[in-house]
């Protein structure tokens, strides 16, 4: 089921002013059925015209709330950052397929880059609820532009890399993962910038890997066929419908 509802904003606070925000929304219907990795299409204002796809960061079925973690990039996310508690927010969701959640024999690994960490938190919560042990590897450009670490450190062992070395290990997530025995994990999940995903794809033979992709979306509903990504078999699939989560082995990053 997909809903188009006016959620009520409970809070909308900067984690880092003008950069990353956390918004909590009262929206029972979506909270009831949302799965980790699914996303919302949000009307942020009269301009931009299109809704903006934003992942679900956290779901609280009891409180009937959903949260989003978002980075201000352009007009749409700027609009979002200016909304206040008690205002209504026009949301369509939950959309897309989600990550696989079940009890694994061995550990699970979450790999996030930048704002790509957003869909991983709810995933981590659900994996933990299912009784899994979790390790988390997150990459940011610097200490000043890293965020939400307190959330992820509650899920399991957290290791951070920053490009400038101002926090954790210097480099991308690769600097961390190159020292990992990936075959000790039953499953890895990743979301982040395309270069990171391309790198991770080279590891897909070592660990069962699910990737959450991004693509420019028109409808978010599977109708317009704009959001496609290339599959290894040469076909295109819709990121909004068959995705955003794909098995790494399905996805092709070749031109």
């Amino acid at each position, binding site marked *: 089921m*997909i809903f188009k509802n006016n959620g009520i904003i409970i809070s909308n606070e900067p984690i880092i002013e003008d950069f990353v925000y956390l918004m909590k929304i009262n929206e029972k219907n979506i909270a009831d059925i949302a799965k980790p990795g699914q996303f919302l299409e949000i009307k942020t204002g009269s301009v931009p*015209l299109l809704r903006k796809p934003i992942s679900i960061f956290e779901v609280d079925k009891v409180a009937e709330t959903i949260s989003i973690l978002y980075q201000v990039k352009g007009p749409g996310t700027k609009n979002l950052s200016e909304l206040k508690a008690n205002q209504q927010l026009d949301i369509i969701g939950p959309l897309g397929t989600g990550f696989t959640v079940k009890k694994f024999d061995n550990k699970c690994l979450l790999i996030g880059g930048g704002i790509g960490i957003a869909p991983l938190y709810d995933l981590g919560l659900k994996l933990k609820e299912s009784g899994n042990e979790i390790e988390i590897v997150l990459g940011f450009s610097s200490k000043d532009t890293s965020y939400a670490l307190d959330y992820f450190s509650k899920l399991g062992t957290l290791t951070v890399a920053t490009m400038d070395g101002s926090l954790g290990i210097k480099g991308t997530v690769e600097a961390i993962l190159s020292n990992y025995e990936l075959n000790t994990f039953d499953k890895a999940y990743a979301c982040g910038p395309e270069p990171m995903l391309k790198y991770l794809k080279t590891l897909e033979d070592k660990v069962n890997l699910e990737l959450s992709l991004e693509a*420019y*979306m*028109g*409808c978010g509903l*599977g109708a*317009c*066929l*704009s959001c496609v990504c290339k599959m290894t078999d040469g076909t295109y699939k819709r990121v909004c419908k068959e995705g955003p989560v794909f098995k790494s082995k399905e996805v092709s990053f070749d031109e």
Partner: protein
Amino acid sequence: MNKLECNLGKFKMKNPVTVASGTFGSGKEFKDFYDLSLLGGIMVKGTTPEKRVGNKPQRLVETSGGIINSIGLANGGVDDFINNILPEAKTYGTEIIVNISGSSIDDYGYMADRLSIDGVSALEVNISCPNVKEGGITFGTDPNMAFDVAKMVKNNTSKPIIMKLSPNVTNIAIMAQAVESGGADIISMINTLIGMAIDVEKQRPIINNIIGGYSGPPIKPVALRMVYEVYKAVNIPIIGMGGIMNTTDALEFIMAGASAISVGTGNFVDPYIPIDIIKGINEYLDNKGLSSYTDIIGAAHK
């Protein structure tokens, strides 16, 4: 009496509000929002004789208050449509208008023939898709070829034929007259304007196909003008579209001469727009004390 009853010659719909091809899939994707039988009709995503994977992404971008798309007519082909899509679509309780494209005149004849089957209410003939390399746009800009396509379709089906016009022409009235003489029962208009957007940081076109179809609110004034011109030039009914987002927009098209309207890009912004328009036209008629929306078709010409 139903104030919105819509008779487009031999093609009838319960109301004049449809959804535009390529913006509504086959309807399935919108079923969660409302009962699709409320719609006058659904113009399904463009179908071609063979499966097409479509263009490389990035296929769509918002620009200047509208969007540019270059999907490249991605679809499973007509067999896939008949076997896997139509069976469900014909249960929706609304008219299923199948949008067809081809790269040759014969293709159109083949498509018309194949789709002359139960469950297909009418054929919308896309001679104006800007996103296909082979032919696509030429059919839509040359009156002789447009005539030939209309005639070919006519000869291969007894379904109502809707010829869809491209706005990217010098003289839209001549195109309309050409398809009318070719045998069109109805004209739908407009398809997208051809547009482009550039990423000034990357110094590259944003759409991988370089150009794409421009749609949404910014194209409305052009669409309205063309509907107004075509209304004067032909005797067959018009389904108007191009940037319709609300009741006022829909009424403008009807007053310009459209006997029905179609919501395209609007479906991405708010799936309920077609339903709101059905309600809104009824309210307008009530306020003006009119008993049928047909009273205002072409009203701006007086």
